[in-house]
């Protein structure tokens, strides 16, 4: 019980920006307890995933709840796993002041913010799940919630990374005597971060597609994963056309 309280205290402090004393989205992550944040993120991801999979389990197959509850935290974990190495390599090449650990901490904090926003929208997803028979509507609603929470998290991440480079609270790693002078200046590091954020967004979109079905069609038999093929944009457009065109 004490552990759970500590986890959510860490998340609460992140959301409140208490570490920085400012608006957290504008101010960035500050120094975080990564382990507590990871655990809190896992619980939040499980919660939203369960709400998300509830729709697909309306036919009585509760496996979809279990599958989606596992897939939502997995989606974020795999996205970080896939994109973080490139962030560190490019940031190091362009002369970023921080090492891999603070960078990873910031990326994990952004994932925690993303999952906290998603989980807070979970009751609304659950309400629409129980009152809606339209599968395309549920898909579009979930995509919309992911876009909203993703935009907030990416803004948080961009500001955190920039602040980490420019801000006074994280003292820079002292350069070694034999370390090369960075070729690109501070502006270049910021550009690397911006490009990497685009990569992060694309990878998370594709990861969501690979892990589908996340909502699950109650008319279709349960499957842990859908066959390969297609693309998320085509599927979203198809759902929109189906919703609007009947």
């Amino acid at each position: 019980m004490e552990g759970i309280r500590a986890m959510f205290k860490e998340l609460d402090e992140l959301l409140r920006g208490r570490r920085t004393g400012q608006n957290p989205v504008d101010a960035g992550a500050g120094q975080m307890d990564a382990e507590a944040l990871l655990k809190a993120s896992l619980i939040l991801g499980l919660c939203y995933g369960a709400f998300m999979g509830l729709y697909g389990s309306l036919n009585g197959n509760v496996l979809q709840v279990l599958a989606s509850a596992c897939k939502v935290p997995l989606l974020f974990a795999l996205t970080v796993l896939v994109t973080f190495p490139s962030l560190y390599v490019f940031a190091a090449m362009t002369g970023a002041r921080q090492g891999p650990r603070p960078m990873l901490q910031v990326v994990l904090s952004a994932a925690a913010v993303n999952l906290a926003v998603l989980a807070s929208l979970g009751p609304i997803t659950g309400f629409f799940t129980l009152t809606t028979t339209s599968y395309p509507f549920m898909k579009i609603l979930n995509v919309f919630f992911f876009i909203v929470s993703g935009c907030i998290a990416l803004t948080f991440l961009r500001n955190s990374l920039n602040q980490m480079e420019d801000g006074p609270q994280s003292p820079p790693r002292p350069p070694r005597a034999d370390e090369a002078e960075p070729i690109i200046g501070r502006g270049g590091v910021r550009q690397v971060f911006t490009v990497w954020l685009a990569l992060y967004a694309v990878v998370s979109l594709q990861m969501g597609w690979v892990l589908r079905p996340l909502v699950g069609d109650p008319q279709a038999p349960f499957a842990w994963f859908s066959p390969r093929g297609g693309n998320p944009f085509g599927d979203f457009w198809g759902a929109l056309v189906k919703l609007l065109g009947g």
Partner: protein
Amino acid sequence: MTVAGRIDDFLRGRGEFSAEGSRALGLGRLWGIAAAAGLFYGVVMGSYCGLSAGRWQQLAYSAAKVPLFLFVTYALCVPAFFVFNSLRGLRTDFRIALSAMTAMQACLAVILASLAPVTALAYLSTPDYGTAVFFNGIVFAAASVSSQIVVLRCYRPLIALDRRHRSMIAVWLTLYVFVGIQAAWVMRPFVGNPDLPVALFRPGAWGNAYVAVIKLTRQVLQ
């Protein structure tokens, strides 16, 4: 103090309902007002079919459903409102912000109750069920818009402290309207169709308001 005196204080924002000095209003008292006023409007709302045999239950159902509708919509929006406030760095003022939104529910219900005689007159004036439903839609929309006066009054000290609180009003309204439309759709009938038997919830009511609007628009366009 009498109930009328308390409601008067609430509408004027004075006494225990004064928003001055950035203090949170009592949520229990606000919900008490919302429940009482909502219940009253619900009785009038459900009276479209009159009190004929087998029809009086609609009054009881609607009386229960109006406060329930307000509470369900509010409860579903609070978690997201909390997180958005936290993310904007406005968490320290959340208690006051939440009391402002609770005051909105109470004000909405009081305005509805004040418009109950107008609704009753409209019922007496039209034999058409569709018109009665449409009229109630107008009354709810008018009450929702008017209740923003109380929200702004409660938010005034917060906005004076930090202008970012303005954006949180927009966040709340977006969530509230989005969820409220669906909640009203699911909890129908509120008025009660005279051609159908009285029911707490319409059989097959589980559907999506937005999908229904899209279907209706498509039919009109075709």
